């Protein structure tokens, strides 16, 4: 099935928009080329999920952002996510940033934390050097479309040897289904730097009824010896389709930690990949998801090992309710020459309904002999022995099951770096699990 993209994704329209926003020539051109590609390429084809049947064309049109003067002007759903006393916060509403804040201390150290559109103008060389280098515009229709249309976004640059102690936080939300909402997140951690970034992607009233698509890309460059912790919670309305491609390239002795909560109410394509380029590089991925009602999800984690002695661990845990379905893929690829590499993955699905579907597909692709790798996958129901044990202490059946389900997700929840985000995540889980 071919899907006709709206005319505003044509080369002419995207270039016109980019020029009107004052974007540098190289970016105008990149967007134009991407728009052409979006017309030619096919949608990605994840295992066993027919995303071509989703409404993928409701990409909306650009909405001029109107910056806010105070956090108090923002809707409750956003305010309650703001970390207490945070000095490093970026908020995107629909097509652009409306709030930006970076502590003077970090700014003085050379840390850049701003929206990607601004960064493209103010730090053009740096952005040009990295943008679309981890996720290329010509991979498929999704990456092309996103590269043509992305707006707002986040740019993080941490200079050599700078350690950012407190998490940088971003909140990306839409409240207008008709507005384009396509953030691109670009993080560069220079040699031996350290940073934690956490974002929440949510939708508010105004984006609950009409269909919308959130095509987003995250690119992270972990330079030698650097460490990046990336946390992300997605909780958009059922009317939305979330297509999020996340990718990190990790150099010698660098480390990435991904903590992802795919908790949308709508259909979701989520693909989180670490490219372990450098010797001794390492990656740790934790993904949780709760599927309810009729939502469909394709959740993929990937680790590709090029570096000797590189190490990867991937964990995905999903709870499936009602008639929801999730295809969970874990792909560990060890390239020839990546001696002493170690790749481990686990996918676990807890089924709460006989009509739900949860497939766990662990895949190991190994082209090198001198490596270690392992995988474990399980799909099961709440264990009746565990329920019996908890009930035998006086806990009701309902509470016993709750304990077991939350316990199943706890190893990921407890890792969320910002306390307010962790608390909100807890609320989202309660709503999804008990709603």
């Amino acid at each position, binding site marked *: 099935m071919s899907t006709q993209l709206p005319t505003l994704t044509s080369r002419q329209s995207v270039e016109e928009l980019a020029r009107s926003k004052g974007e540098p020539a190289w970016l105008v051109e990149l967007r134009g080329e991407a728009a052409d590609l979006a017309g030619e390429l096919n949608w990605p084809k994840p295992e066993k999920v027919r995303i071509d049947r989703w409404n993928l064309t409701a990409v909306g049109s650009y909405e001029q952002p109107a910056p806010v003067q105070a956090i108090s002007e923002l809707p409750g759903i956003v305010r309650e996510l703001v970390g207490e006393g945070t000095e490093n916060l970026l908020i995107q509403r629909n097509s652009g940033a409306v709030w930006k804040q970076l502590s003077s201390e970090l700014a003085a150290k050379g840390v850049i934390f701003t929206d990607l559109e601004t960064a493209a103008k103010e730090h053009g060389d740096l952005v040009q050097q990295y943008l679309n280098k981890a996720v290329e515009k010509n991979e498929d229709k999704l990456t092309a479309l996103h590269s043509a249309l992305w707006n707002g976004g986040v740019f993080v640059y941490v200079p050599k040897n700078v350690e950012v102690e407190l998490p940088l936080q971003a909140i990306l939300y839409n409240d207008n289904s008709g507005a384009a909402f396509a953030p691109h997140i670009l993080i560069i951690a220079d040699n031996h730097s350290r940073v934690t970034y956490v974002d929440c992607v949510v939708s508010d009233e105004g984006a609950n009824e009409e269909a919308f698509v959130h095509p987003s890309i995250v690119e992270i460059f972990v330079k030698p010896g650097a460490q990046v912790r990336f946390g992300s919670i997605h909780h958009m309305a059922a009317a939305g389709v979330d297509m999020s491609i996340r990718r990190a390239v990790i150099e010698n002795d660098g480390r990435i930690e991904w903590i992802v909560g795919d908790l949308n109410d709508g259909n979701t394509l989520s693909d989180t990949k670490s490219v372990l380029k450098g010797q001794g590089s390492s990656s740790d991925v934790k993904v949780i998801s709760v599927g309810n009602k009729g939502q469909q999800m394709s959740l993929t984690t990937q680790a590709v090992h090029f570096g000797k002695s590189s190490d990867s661990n991937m964990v995905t845990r999903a709870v499936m309710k009602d008639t929801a379905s999730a295809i969970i893929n874990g792909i560990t690829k060890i390239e020839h020459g990546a001696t002493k590499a170690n790749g481990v993955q686990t996918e676990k699905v807890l089924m709460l309904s006989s009509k739900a579907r949860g497939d766990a597909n662990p895949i190991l692709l190994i082209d090198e002999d001198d490596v270690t790798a392992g995988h474990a996958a399980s799909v099961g129901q709440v264990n009746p022995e565990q329920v019996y044990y908890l*009930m035998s202490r*006086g806990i009701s059946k309902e509470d016993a099951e709750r304990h077991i389900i939350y316990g199943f997700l706890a190893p990921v929840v407890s890792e969320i770096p910002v306390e307010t985000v962790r608390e909100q995540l807890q609320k989202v889980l309660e709503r999804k699990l008990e709603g």
Partner: protein
Amino acid sequence: MATQFVIDGLKAEIEGKEILKGINLEIKGGEIHAIMGPNGTGKSTLASALMGHPKYEVTEGSATLDGEDLLEMEVDERARAGLFLAMQYPSEIPGVTNSDFLRSAINARREEGNEISLIKFIRQMEGKMKELEMNPEFAHRYLNEGFSGGEKKRNEILQMMLLDPKIVVLDEIDSGLDIDALRIVANGVNAMRSEERGFLIITHYQRLLNYIKPDFVHVMMQGRIVKSGGPELAERLENEGYDWVKEELGIVDETVGQA
């Protein structure tokens, strides 16, 4: 009213196979009863059937605690009515910390709005853990996950101490315990002895009964209590084994429900 626990003509089966063939037993507050017997005679089935394990089906008989019919109740209601079973193989529950679990269990016995305060709970839990010589770190570990056999048993006793039940069934609490752990567990049980509380200790070794003195000893074979006596019965079983009982009763195969 003094605690009174009465099992009357209890029969139970698993997957259609009858294991308990009519158990009669009465335990009053303050009493300690021991059920002994070789493996496969139905001892643990009795414990599981009383608690309401989903795999066991009670086909006949009754079990009442202070006049209330336990067998009519769900598992959690039985617990809240005052029955406690220290399990032979406690479940591991990943992601649920021991302290969260214990607090939920305590609060399940209290009215909504009257939950135990966190401070009071922690003080109680830490006090009991100290008595059981448990590392305080176990409060924050996931429930039974990665615990050794002995640690699990101690954790069962910790739960018993915090939940203050009327009838305690200890199912093979001594299996897998070294002598130090056995002493600690026994001390925990002895500290809980009271006129308000009855105990049913299931074991096939007499050694536990050196630490916890029973008032009554029963021998179970073929899904029935075939012999009852005082503490001297346990000693004789320890010295002479079970063969004399079998001989006396003309039992060839003491097991029940074996394939």
